[in-house]
């Protein structure tokens, strides 16, 4: 019967101390009754193997003990959908772009690779890993705390169907967004093309920041792209309804932009900083930090364009053809 005592001891280990002896005594009685019944059926005592089989049939001690414990969860079913939603947002808006930028820099930027060898690469990876860890841990701690301290009645009682968001028409384009895109596109496009043409980014107070001459070739690549994108925004503003063609064109604009930006990151020609109005050391720091920031910004922009391009392609594939849309509208 030593096996039975070992088994009971293992079950007791997982139980709260106030209930350990009581539950173990009842389990012991149940096991003994079962052993006695088998023995009377067989007309002999059970051997150790038979007792072992009987205990195995009852399940692992941890699982047996768990059934006596109240159901517990870090984040309960009421808050879990919101917690899951936040995690997905964190994953999509923070972790995927961060890792994408890192992979992009490692794959396409020889300058980045040259400065991030050996331990430096490991350090970058550790930063990414720490960010990921923090990004998942913080929401978990917040929701676990809410689960314990917040009265969740407001979630179940304090709501009204009137306050729910309006029905979303995924094919409809917001005129406000198109208007903003149009205005921003024109202003940004002119500014960007003017920089690519003149190669002067900043020239005031004794600080002159210019682009290396290699940048000039990008003027002719960005010019049609900017014009086309602005025209697309204008069409979207006038006819605010997505069609498969327009989704496809938007995907193409973003994918081409991503390609161009990756090309810039890959063959990065540095910004030239001439700072006559400041000490040489400060000028060097400015040069280094400005180049690092610009290089990283292009990598981030490339990843964002790539993600938007892929998303738009996916949406284009799901968008109904114009004819089906028309028949839907007629039916409505």
């Amino acid at each position: 019967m030593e096996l039975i005592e070992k088994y009971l001891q293992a079950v007791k280990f997982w139980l709260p101390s106030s209930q350990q002896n009581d539950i173990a005594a009842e389990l012991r009685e149940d096991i003994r009754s079962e052993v006695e019944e088998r023995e009377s059926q067989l007309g002999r005592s059970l051997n150790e193997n038979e007792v072992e089989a009987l205990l195995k049939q009852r399940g692992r001690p941890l699982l047996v003990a768990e059934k006596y414990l109240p159901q517990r969860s870090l984040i309960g079913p009421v808050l879990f959908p919101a917690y899951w939603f936040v995690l997905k947002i964190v994953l999509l808006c923070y972790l995927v772009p961060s890792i994408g930028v890192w992979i992009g820099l490692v794959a396409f930027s020889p300058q980045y690779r040259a400065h991030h060898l050996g331990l430096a690469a490991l350090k970058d990876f550790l930063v990414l890993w720490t960010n990921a860890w923090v990004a998942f841990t913080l929401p978990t701690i917040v929701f676990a705390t809410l689960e314990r301290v917040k009265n969740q009645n407001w979630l179940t009682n304090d709501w009204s169907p009137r306050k729910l968001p309006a029905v979303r028409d995924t094919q409809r384009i917001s005129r406000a967004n198109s208007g903003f895109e149009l205005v921003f596109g024109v202003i940004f496009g002119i500014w960007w093309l003017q920089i690519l043409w003149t190669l002067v980014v900043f020239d005031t107070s004794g600080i002159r920041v210019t682009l290396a001459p290699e940048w000039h070739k990008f003027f002719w690549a960005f010019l049609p792209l900017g014009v086309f994108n602005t025209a697309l925004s204008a069409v979207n503003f006038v006819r605010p309804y997505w069609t498969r063609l327009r989704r496809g064109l938007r995907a193409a604009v973003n994918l081409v932009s991503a390609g161009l930006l990756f090309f810039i990151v890959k063959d990065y020609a540095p910004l030239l900083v001439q700072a006559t109005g400041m000490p040489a050391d400060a000028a060097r720091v400015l040069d280094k930090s400005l180049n690092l920031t610009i290089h990283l910004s292009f990598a981030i922009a490339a990843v964002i364009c790539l993600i938007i391009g892929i998303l738009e392609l996916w949406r284009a594939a799901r968008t109904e053809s114009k004819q089906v849309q028309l028949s839907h509208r007629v039916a409505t």
Partner: protein
Amino acid sequence: MTQGTQNDALLENLRLELRRGCLVLAVLAELRTEQYGYTLRKGLADRGLEVDEGTLYPLLRRLEGQGLLASEWREEDKRNKRFYKISRDGKLVLKQLLGEWQTIGSSLEEILQESENGAHRKISASS
């Protein structure tokens, strides 16, 4: 996982869900007569309601915690055993649950009867 295994697992889950609610009723009803855990388990199994000890004993504790059962340790055949019996509150709840059970049973019976009649009507209309 094959389709057959998936269906078996699904059926087993649904069967367990269906039995879970009935089990409380069966335990309360069985404990109108005082019994200890093992005889209760055997009694339920003999009537076709097999229940493993990992389900039964926690359930007994829960029902006792809710005041529907009362228990005491007593010596029988030179062994200490815990005897359970339905409490006064338990009897009231059992009566209400049995009423609910009968309502569910007759509603289900009616639904099944209606769908059977509908199926018959469809067959005769098509022939």
